[in-house]
């Protein structure tokens, strides 16, 4: 406990420096803007801004990204409540009761509850993140290659199961991502793999152009294909922002329930913020004394899911900081930013770069506070961004993506990769493929391969020795259960029917 208190105080001392406060502010504002804009979610924003972080130190980059992630989560709820347009996937559930509340003239109360819920959830998840990440990183220091291989495989299996869509399609995406991760010089043997004699490819396919292409350019292509529609933006008056005593009474317990639920779900691989909102909404409806109000403007239907999606963000940071494995695409971006600064996340990072870890924790808290102070009074300003025509905004985003990719390595090959993966990402999404498993497998793939080869070396090629270890076996059983349990449930339902 003393370690946490000391670390956090040190973190606040770092994060309260004017430059880092500026990055937290910038991240919160940029995140809110991207959250407000339908289509361009936190992933797109992180992908576009990844190259910008080069001019910052690692702490600054992490603070900016945390601000973007939290800001986007909150920004998405603004358009859901006011316009019935989810700014990003995790805000879909908020549309159901948030928009109904707006239609009844309670938009201000819904926005305040969403903001306060996000703040409470952010606080709880940061506390959870500190405790769980520290605990897990201590254990992870004792892990060997076999354990890291098992964690990687288990993570990908869970991701495949939870990312939605067809299992076969998700598995193919994972295999393609892992295949792309094998391109370049194999650093264990020094052999070139799939480089075709190209020196630049020897360093492997860079994560940045692939991520920017698949999430940034593909998003632009999807957006420009749709017809432009003018948004009628509802004005929110300052005096309407305060919820009534009854609304507070109903929403505060929902915020706490959503926070704990969201944090727990955030630890699981896959689109955790999205899953967290749905689970929170369903559980709020199930435990409510007035379930008939859900869908008609129940304030718990806004408070719970909004808290859950923010708490899931904190949860998603745990595997990255403690194990060095990103379980969500957004965390893959954070990993990319860390790697751009020559840092490899994992159990050692918290010990060796404790200043960075605690500064990020403290800045998350500051970022959450900034969101509540800034976003409620400025809600009308943020929503007015929707008035910028897409046919101006989209070319600007493409230009920023291209310049951003070029600025990292001054490589024309990276620019070609951006175009190629933009097109591939667009086509794959258009026919219903989930692209998140591809990008995550590309990041985790090399780690899985290295761990496997090291583990085989250590065990003398004995696969049994790799599997029958307590942690490994538990993880493999857990991964198998994700397939077995649905089959059993299906059989039971069939039997009853």
């Amino acid at each position, binding site marked *: 406990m003393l370690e946490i208190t000391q670390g956090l105080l040190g973190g606040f001392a770092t994060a309260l420096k004017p430059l880092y406060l500026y990055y937290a502010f910038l991240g919160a504002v940029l995140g809110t803007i991207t959250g407000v804009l339908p289509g361009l979610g936190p992933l797109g924003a992180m992908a576009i801004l990844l190259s910008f972080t080069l001019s910052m130190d690692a702490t600054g980059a992490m603070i900016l990204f945390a601000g973007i992630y939290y800001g986007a989560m909150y920004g998405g709820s603004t358009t859901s409540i006011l316009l019935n347009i989810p700014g990003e996937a995790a805000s879909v559930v908020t549309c159901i009761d948030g928009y109904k509340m707006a239609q009844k003239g309670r938009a201000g109360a819904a926005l305040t509850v969403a903001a306060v819920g996000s703040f409470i959830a952010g606080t709880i998840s940061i506390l959870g993140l500190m405790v769980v990440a520290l605990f897990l990183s201590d254990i992870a220091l004792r892990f060997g290659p076999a354990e890291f291989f098992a964690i990687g495989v288990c993570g990908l299996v869970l991701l495949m199961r939870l990312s939605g869509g067809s299992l076969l399609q998700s598995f193919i995406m994972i295999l393609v991502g892992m295949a792309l991760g094998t391109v370049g010089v194999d650093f264990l043997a020094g*052999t070139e793999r799939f480089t075709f004699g190209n020196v630049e490819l020897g360093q492997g396919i860079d994560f940045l152009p692939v991520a920017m292409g698949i999430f940034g350019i593909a998003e632009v292509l999807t957006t420009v294909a749709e017809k432009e529609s003018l948004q009628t933006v509802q004005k929110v008056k300052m005096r309407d922002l305060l919820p009534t005593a009854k609304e507070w009474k109903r929403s505060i317990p929902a915020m706490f329930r959503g926070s704990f639920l969201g944090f727990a779900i955030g630890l699981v691989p896959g689109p955790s913020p999205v899953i967290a909102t749905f689970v929170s909404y369903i559980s709020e409806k199930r435990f409510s004394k007035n379930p008939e109000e859900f869908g008609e403007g129940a304030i718990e239907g806004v408070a719970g899911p909004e808290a859950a999606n923010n708490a899931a963000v904190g949860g998603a940071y745990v595997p990255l900081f403690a194990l060095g494995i990103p379980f969500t695409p957004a965390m893959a971006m954070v990993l990319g930013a860390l790697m751009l600064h020559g840092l490899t996340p994992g159990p050692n990072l918290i010990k060796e770069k404790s200043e960075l870890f605690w500064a990020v924790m403290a800045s998350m808290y500051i970022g959450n506070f900034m969101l509540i102070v800034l976003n409620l009074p400025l809600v009308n300003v943020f929503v007015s961004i929707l008035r910028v025509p897409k046919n101006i905004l989209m070319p600007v985003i493409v230009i*920023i993506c291209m310049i951003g990719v070029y*600025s990292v390595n001054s490589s024309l090959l990276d*620019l070609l990769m951006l175009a190629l993966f933009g097109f591939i990402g667009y086509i794959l999404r258009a026919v219903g493929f989930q692209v998140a498993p591809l990008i995550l497998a590309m990041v985790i793939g090399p780690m899985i391969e290295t761990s496997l080869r090291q583990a085989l070396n250590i065990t003398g090629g004995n696969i049994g020795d790799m599997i029958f270890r307590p942690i490994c076996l538990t993880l493999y059983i857990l991964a198998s259960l994700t397939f077995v349990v649905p089959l059993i449930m299906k059989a039971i339902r069939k039997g009853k029917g």
Partner: protein
Amino acid sequence: MIGNTPRNHKIIALFLFGFALFYFLGSFRLKMGTLKIPGPGLIPVVLGGLLVFCSGFYLYRVAFQNRRESMGKEGSAEGGRNYRAIAGVLACTLIYPFILEPLKFILATFSAGFLMLFLLRPRRPFSSGLLALSLAVGAFLIFSRLFGVAFPSGFLENFIFRIGG
């Protein structure tokens, strides 16, 4: 947007199968090693094999699904798409790497930006030109002066860099 039609699924499945075969066959050129001392080709061969099997199964599934069902869906999802905009944005991202060094940063960025803006809002060429120019100059100043990025530079870039302060 390209529609989620059976025909497009078949094209994607064929492309994935082609990629899988290419990767699988290519992986045999690498040393496999043994289980005790795995070589750089072991994982690519395993991945390639799985990829060929899965993409082959996927191709089989989409190729032989109910024809009547596919005829019903065919074409329905593709109506009203802004293909010109998609092609324009894609063309710009593809052309940009090839014109960046010969035209230098500002002219190349202006050309790509203008082309995209013009394709998306054809009735306003003048304002599109002005916007593209300010975008190119603004991006150059921000990235080169603020972030210290070295772009392909010619007379125009050197001139702007000097007057930029």
